[in-house]
């Protein structure tokens, strides 16, 4: 895990994309897109429906080792409004136990805006101290931790191109990678990121084994 200092608060990011606010015992993840696999059945593509289980197990394993009391989900936790209904009983069990044992804050993402659930309360924005948690970053001077864009970066090393999920830390923004097992990514070169990238920013490059920290000028592609 690598340490990130964000407005004098200490966070740690692991190679799976889980951000930990040590002092507050808060784990932050984004864009789980639960039941994305099963959502394709309607178009005749019967994707093996194991993504939710994998995604949630990744989280469970992390929670076993780290001290966490609150989990903030930065939106697009569910791939669509019908996701909860499609979950297998096995996955539902895992999900329910998480909700039971932790304080879970659901921030509202664009994939969920048509969702109506009796027992999930969605927040447009959730604030802890001076840190604002939202789904998609906004052009405000506040310190924000958000997701939505599924950032991915490419590095050219020894004439080879390596592409992986990443976390972006740019002055008052932390943009989280997508945590979901079946989530793809958008390259940080894409213009949507521009408004939030300072001249100097850091990317935390996530691989199967570790987290690597690079400064923006190191990234040539």
């Amino acid at each position, binding site marked *: 895990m690598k340490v990130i200092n964000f407005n004098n608060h200490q966070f740690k990011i692991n190679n799976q994309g889980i951000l930990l606010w040590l002092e507050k015992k808060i784990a932050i993840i984004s864009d789980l897109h639960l039941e994305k696999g099963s959502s394709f059945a309607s178009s005749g593509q019967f994707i093996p*429906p194991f993504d939710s289980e994998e995604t949630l197990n990744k989280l469970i394993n992390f929670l076993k080792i780290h001290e966490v009391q609150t989990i903030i989900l930065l939106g697009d936790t569910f791939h669509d409004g019908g996701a909860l209904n499609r979950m297998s009983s096995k996955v539902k069990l895992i999900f329910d136990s998480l909700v039971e044992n932790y304080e879970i804050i659901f921030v509202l993402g664009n994939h969920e805006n048509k969702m109506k659930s009796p027992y999930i309360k969605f927040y447009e924005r959730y604030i802890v101290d001076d840190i604002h948690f939202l789904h998609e970053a906004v052009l405000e001077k506040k310190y924000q931790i958000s997701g939505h864009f599924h950032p991915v970066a490419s*590095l050219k090393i*020894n004439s080879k191109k390596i592409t992986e999920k990443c976390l972006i830390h740019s002055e008052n923004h932390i943009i989280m990678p997508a945590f979901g097992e079946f989530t793809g990514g958008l390259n940080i070169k894409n213009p949507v990121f521009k408004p939030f990238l300072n001249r100097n920013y850091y990317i935390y490059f996530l*691989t199967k*084994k570790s987290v690597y*920290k690079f400064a923006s000028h190191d990234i040539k592609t």
Partner: protein
Amino acid sequence: MLDNLKLQPIENWLKKNNWSFYDHQLETLKHSKNGFDILLVAPTGGGKTLAGFLPSLEDLVENKSPNNKLHTLYISPLKALTVDVHRNLTSPIEDQGLDIIVETRTGDTSSYKKNRQKQKPPHMLMTTPESLALLLADTKASEFFKYLKYLIVDEIHSLINSKRGDLLSLNLSRLNSITPDCKRIGLSATIKDKDSVLSFLSQKLKAKIINIEEKSKPNIDILESNNRVPWSGHMAGYAIADIYKEIKKSSTTIIFVNTRAQAELVFNKLWHENEDNYKIAIHHGSLEKEIRRKVENLMSHGELDCVVATSSLDLGIDWGKVDLVIQIGSPKGIARFLQRIGRSNHRFNQPSRALLVPANRFEYLECISAINSIQKQLIDGSTEKKGSLDVLAQHILGVACSNPFQLDELYLEIKNAWSYRNLTKDKFLEVLEFVKNGGYSLKHYEHYSKIGINKENLYAIQSSKVRSKYRLNVGTIVESYMLKVKLGRRTLGQVEEWFIEGLNEGDTFLFGGRILEYQNVQENHVIVKSTKDQHPKIPSYAGGRLPLSSELSLEVRTLLNHKKSWEEFPSQIKDWLSLQSKFSTLPSEKGLLVESFPRKINNKKRFFLISYSFEGRNANQTLGFLVSKKMQRMGYKPIGFVATEYALAIWSMNEVEDINILLNEDIMLDDLYEWLEETPLLKKNFRDAAIISGLIERKIPGQVKTGKQVIFNSDLIFNVLKKHEPNHILLQVARDDAYRGLIDLDRLSEFLKRIKNKIIYKKLDQISPLGIPLVLEINRQTINKSDVNEYFLEELESEMLDEVGLI
């Protein structure tokens, strides 16, 4: 015999051109009339096509077949071939005023024409296996094929033992259910295992093989050049001037290359030489249809002086007055080469003339061996392939699209397909479940099932939407995602997405014989503009993709070890080999030579290990993966490797200490299966299988990306599937494809046994003469990508952090 046959019109036409029937053509006719299904095996130029059509033509002339009923179906693997055969048939038909309608139907046929053909079938239809699959998936398929009397499968040897062959096999069985009395004729080039090919075509008791031997030995030479044969590379740039001289001497020349990139480069260089303004054209599969057709037409009318081509012209096309065939680079296989040279002097019974142009020194050895093999009349074999399950899944859906089916009946029909003769009922049911709803009993998936049991207890598709999606997805050749190349308003052809990904604005590259400047990508088009640059900036992919056959490989090894045979070599090659024996030693025929030396790459000291296995690229590549995996475990930190037909070179951060442990047979094969699970190749095969089987929809050019992702990325599923369903059908298919394709498992095991205790190890201070070509190879393959990247990232990160003064 001729008097009994109503072949007068054909005979007249032949006489007009000073031709007459060949014996084997009449023999084919005779046996077909007597109720036999026939496999005609003959070298190219042997009048096979006419032999295949004679029975059908005779019947049409004699029995005045009614209109709008399909009488004859001709299947060939290539669109170009169907067009060519169509041209060849209509020539005598029109000339003699016969009332026979002949049409083609391929991916290039317009939908208007396709509809018309369904309403009013021609007498004879020329088509491809994929178009046949589509025709059979139609609700009116039985009606359409009801009157079929003759079925001709051309170039059948090139279809079997491939997924396309699997699909064809299933459809041949389907046709057999619809018209069991239809007569079949298969046309094949010279191959080793003829009986299997006959069984593939027909399982009737009354089936026979008519075999024509090559009457005259081909006239093959290696191009003599005063220029240096390069160490490595595949472009044969050194020989262009000499090649041009040969073109001057001949009437019409075909130059064969192994890849599209080579075609572009050779074409470009030839034009730089072309002071006499000869008509030189280029032909490969990525060019627009119109451009290809134009070249084919000009070629058949003898209006071109030279064509530079890849395999799209490879199969059986009649080539007017070609009198010279030049093969650049090794032909990679004897059968393939024979077929190519059969093209020159396209008169049966007259020797064809061919010239081999090796692109590098090792290829020189390969070319000599090829010539030797041909003189000795050795033919390479091919391993039999069992029917793929992804293709079966596609087929089952196709059957359901045509009409509801009964479970057991379909199973029997599938078993009648040669490629699937060993399919168990269990496996069949497993595939059926997969087709229904992915094989998952989830409520949500059941709701959207593609097929289900109807009121009559038959399996039927649940909606017409299923049928329309099926039609878009059919086919077993999964191409890498292609983008159209647009110059102004013109579309020049298509190019692979991965190629474009590597380009920046302003980069120039070769395509369709021009140098183009890359601008950007819009939707699914690559926008380019013309440039006056003489040399393209981006080097094209240089590798030869065809693996060296084991027969040819053995010849090369033998050649290397018999100094006497070197006498005929040019001095460059002789010197090279002599130097090798002085500096190191020559690779042995029976054992294995391994060399090691240090060398700097990008200013960093690396340690090289070269093993001269000569086992063909597939086996060597597998060996490369296995050895590097072991090296990783042993702490040598391997970074990359290069595998060619002859050898394997691995470079690492640390020097290898014990070579014998590294190449120990037992540990190798254990690693193999484990390694296979991690390769990028498996992912790629999985992706192909996912598309072929219909799990994931195929990307369609022109499909605009909306906010919602329409097609699922198979790479994302792969890892999850391995964990939860390691025996999923598609993973089985992916593994089987990997074993067949990359691994060449048999060959590798044989090799490992052979070299046991026979390793000759040479520790050198610097690179050996024989090692130079390897190190210069452009193709680099990385092992277990993520691990390698980890080393680099670590190195890079600590360097950068050091620089910045951090950590």
